[in-house]
Structures are given as C-alpha cells and as structure tokens.
C-alpha cells in the first residue's frame, strides 16, 4: 500500500483546525457471574431474573469480588502492554439515578488495577501509537426502558453489577478513522484474550468520546466536551464530525466552548447538552468501606503473562515472515482470532499465497453476503485447502474454481468429489489441446488469414472458441502457448 499523508482537519474561515479525541471505552468483562455477586451475566434473560439482593442494593448486603474478573482485567492490561498495579482500591462514585439502586457505583478512582500502556494502529500513513492512561474495574448500571409506558420508566437490573473494564486512552487520536482503527484494535486484542466478546449490538463495548479542537500547530488543548455512551463505531465517527464542526464554528464566532457532557442523538445526527448532568461531576468519591484494597501477588501476574495467547501484533509479524504475506494481507487475516485460525489451517495443506488471495476475495465476499462469521462458514478449512490445491496443481482453472466454490457453498461437499462427478478437470494435456486447436483453426481458415494479415485482435476469438469447445476446461496458459505456436506456422 502506498503511504498517504495524514489529512484530517476541519477547515474554518480563519484556518485549519486539528481534532483531538480521547476515548473512555467500557468493555464488559467475560465472566459467568457478576463482579460482586453470584448472579448470571448472560445476555437476553427475562427482566430482573438475574438480580441478587446485592445487585438490587438491599440493606446489609456485602459485595465479594469475583476473582476471575480481576484476572480478566490483568490479562487485558498485559495485552495493552500496560503496567499492572499490585495494589488497587475500590471507591464509591456517588450519583443518583433510577437504574443505580445503590446510589453509587463501585469503581476505582485514584488507584486503578492497570496503569499506563499502549496500542499500535496501522494507518495508511504509517503505524501510530495510542497511549493508554489506565484501565479500572467497575460495576455496570441497570437498564432504563422509556418506551413501554407513556408516564413511567421501567427498570431492569439484569445488567446491574456486571463487571466492566473502563479503558481510558490518552488524547492521542486525531480523526474518526483513527477512532475506528483504535476500537477495532482494542476489540481484536480483547477477543484474542477472551476477556470481552466485543459485541457492540449487545452493548458489551461502548464509549464516552472526548472531543476538542485547536488551530493546526497549537500546542495547547482546547476545551473539551464529553459525548456519553455511544454504542457503535459509526455513531462515534458521526458524533465526532458533528461536534468538531460545532466547536470550530463557536470559536470562529468568538464564542467560548463550555466544558460539558453531551449526548449524540442518532435520529437527528447531532450532539446536544445534557443539562441533567450539571451536578453529576460532583461524584464525592471515597474508598468503599465494604471492600479492602486489592493486593495482587507478582506470581499471579507473571503466571497470567505466561499463559497469554499470541496477540494480533505478534501474529501479524509471524504471518509476514512465515507465510510471506504483505502487511495488508497479514493485517486482515489476524484481525479476528477465528480468521487467523482458519487461514493457518488452510495454509498448512495448500499454497499459502493463493490461500490468502482466495480467502480475502471469494470466501470473505460469500460470508459477507450471507452475513456469517467465519466460524459458521459453509466451507470447512479442510475443503477450502483442497480447492486451493486443485487450482495450484493446475487440475482446475481459476474460472472453474469459482464454479466449484459455488457448489461447495450450496452442498458442503468436498471439492475433489465435485470436480470428478461434474467432469470439471482442466484439460492440460498438450497433445489433446493441440488436436482441438488444429480443428478450430481449420474450420476458421478465413479468420486465420485475417490474423496473419495483421488483425491480431482475433487471438481472443480463437481462445474463446477453445474455451467453448472444451466447456471452459482448457488450461488457459497452455491454450495461449499452443495457439501462438500454431498461428505462427
């Protein structure tokens, strides 16, 4: 890929503005039970059926921490190349809302479980490092449903108390594209680690987006606004574009930007102020008296580090070396663990370059078309490898391979069987081809004369005839060679 130059600026009348973005990503921890109670975290249960007396904040209930959630946070921290803190503290973040029965959220304020780290992004203009400020563990709130009753709000506490990791980036992002790449990279790392399923439809990954603007070349940050709880990458990008343009307009008109919390209205495609949150920043954090500080043994951290799987950055390097892929191909093939597993299985039994090309072309197009994940692919890695080998060995042509591919999708049969039963084998015997071509040439004497007189475009006509007569099975390369030879004579 050619190296482009970074070019995302908002053009005002008085110059170009750079957009500065920081994200607070809330990632739901993959665990069976909640952070401080034994209720299930399973998505889609009947309302209020996965709620304990702790989650609904009955008096006298005591939280007990889920050790797996702690490990998941440490694994994620290690995956973000971050410092793991042996000592961290749980605090109460106090605010009043209907879906927060405790009246406070248990979170980590001054002493988070994970400190500074970094994430690498591959952008068209080169690789870019995004700093991680911290990662801390906290409880999710319940869900308010506003559209079931005209005068009441319904509250479902199934989500209340589920463990979240809040991952705070440094203000290092500069465009909606970088935000897209950053979220996808975080998601990929966590899915490799098995610490978060990254399912944005189910709300397992959502973000608060901090946006400010400044004149190109300025060293100081502008006043920022925080856009709360955006749950898709597309909406994040739209919200950033709208918000940056709004701020530039304010500045150019000589107005001040209020530091405030805003929400993104997905119907009107605009951000607007959340006045109800005016007092919300007065959270009165203090250490939760129900919970002692969390002390992690170094041995636990070291053991978790040793048990980490190979992560996308490392795997990409290996794919480039081991399978001779280019950076772009490697990037695509390591983006999801399941994709990389499938590719490695295919490459084990077939040509590694051809396998990459066919996977990223026909296979991905088909999966995309059917809306399937690779884990649900109608073609198994083993069958796919056989197909690639049939192309590589010259048994079938690329064109016929596409037909075989279609039949494989429909029937789930193995390609060898399809090729044999339908007689799709490529004709690669030079003697037989020569015989066939001679036959065609003698039937088209007039065209042969025209060709020899200089009408070279007719070459395509002869190839077409060969393909027609052979039912598309003639080896194209060999056909070209023999045709050239015979037409010369």
């Amino acid at each position, binding site marked *: 890929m050619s190296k482009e130059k970074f070019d995302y600026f908002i053009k005002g009348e008085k110059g170009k503005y750079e957009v500065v973005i920081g994200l607070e990503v809330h990632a739901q921890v993959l*665990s*069976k*039970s909640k952070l401080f*109670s*034994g*209720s*299930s975290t399973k998505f889609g249960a*009947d*309302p*209020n*059926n*996965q*709620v*304990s*007396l*702790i989650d*609904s904040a009955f008096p006298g209930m005591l939280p*007990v*921490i*889920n*050790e*797996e*959630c*702690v490990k998941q946070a440490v694994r994620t921290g290690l995956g973000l190349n971050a410092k793991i803190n042996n000592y961290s*503290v749980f605090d109460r973040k*106090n605010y*009043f*809302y*209907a879906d927060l029965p405790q009246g406070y959220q248990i979170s980590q304020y001054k002493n988070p479980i994970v400190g500074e780290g970094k994430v690498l992004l591959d952008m068209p203009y080169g690789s870019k490092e995004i700093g991680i400020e911290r990662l801390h563990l906290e409880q999710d709130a319940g869900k*308010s*449903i*506003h559209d*079931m*009753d005209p*005068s*009441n*709000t*319904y*509250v*479902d*506490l199934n989500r209340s108390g589920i463990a979240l990791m809040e991952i705070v980036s440094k203000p290092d992002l500069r465009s909606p594209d970088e935000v897209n790449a950053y979220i996808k990279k975080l998601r990929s790392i966590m899915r490799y680690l098995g610490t978060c399923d990254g399912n944005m439809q189910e709300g397992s990954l959502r973000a608060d987006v901090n946006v400010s603007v400044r004149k190109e070349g300025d060293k100081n940050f502008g006043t920022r606004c925080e856009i709360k709880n955006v749950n898709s990458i597309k909406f994040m990008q739209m919200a950033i574009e709208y918000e940056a343009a709004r701020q530039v307009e304010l500045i150019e008109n000589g107005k001040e930007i209020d530091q405030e919390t805003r*929400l993104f209205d997905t119907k009107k495609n605009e951000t607007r102020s*959340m006045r*109800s949150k005016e*007092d919300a920043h*007065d959270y*009165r954090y203090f*250490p939760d008296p129900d*919970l*002692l*500080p*969390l*002390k992690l043994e170094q041995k636990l951290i070291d053991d978790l580090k040793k048990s980490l799987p190979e992560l996308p950055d490392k795997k990409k390097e290996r794919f480039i070396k081991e399978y001779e892929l280019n950076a772009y191909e490697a990037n695509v093939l390591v983006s999801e663990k399941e994709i990389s597993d499938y590719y490695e299985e295919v490459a084990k039994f077939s040509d590694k370059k051809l396998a990459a090309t066919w996977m990223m072309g026909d296979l991905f197009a088909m999966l995309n078309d059917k809306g399937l994940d690779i884990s649900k692919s109608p073609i198994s890695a083993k069958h796919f490898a056989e197909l690639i080998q049939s192309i590589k060995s010259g048994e079938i042509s690329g064109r016929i391979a596409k037909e075989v591919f279609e039949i494989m999708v429909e029937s789930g049969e193995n390609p060898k069987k399809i090729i044999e039963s339908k007689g799709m084998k490529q004709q690669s015997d030079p003697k037989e081809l020569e015989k066939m071509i001679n036959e065609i040439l003698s039937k088209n004497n007039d065209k042969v004369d025209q060709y020899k007189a200089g009408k070279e475009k007719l070459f395509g006509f002869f190839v077409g005839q060969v393909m027609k007569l052979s039912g598309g099975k003639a080896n194209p390369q060999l056909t070209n060679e023999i045709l050239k030879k015979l037409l010369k004579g």
Partner: protein
Amino acid sequence: MSLDKEKIKHVAKLARISVDDAKVESLTKDLNSIFKFIEQLNELNTDKVEPLTSILNQSLRSRKDEISDGKIREKVLKNSPKENEEFFVVPKVVE
C-alpha cells in the same frame, strides 16, 4: 474547612434529602462544629505515617466465578412501590 448554607443545600440535593430553610441554619452550625472537632487531627504530624485504609490486617476476600444467585425476581421486586411483575416502575426519566 467550613460549610456555608449554599454548600449544605448543594450536598442535600446531591443526597436527595429534603432540607427546609429553617433546618439549613441549624445544620450549618452543627456540621461546622463537627468539622471543627475533626480538624483537630490536622495538628498531628503524619508525614511519616502510611494511610490506614482498614483496621483489619487482611487481604480482600474473593470468590470463584460461579453462578450462585439470582432468579428471585419476586423477592427483588417485593418492596418496590410500583411494579408490573417484571420491572421496577419509576417516574419517567428521559433526556
């Protein structure tokens, strides 16, 4: 640290406690005297003392990741003033 009436009203609002104006006066007086008493502790030099986060010399207790609770909707909703069998029902809160 001293509290004025505005601060008292603000904290009351954050805590969702209704405090009438007459009460604000006496609360300001009471709370200030409490703070004054606590602030005597600042006279001590604690430069070389580690903060005491707990009087128990124990580490945080943890549990295994197992589902051991839930499925008690009836119990959970029992004390809610308004309910519809499945949900807590509260006055409309919309942004």
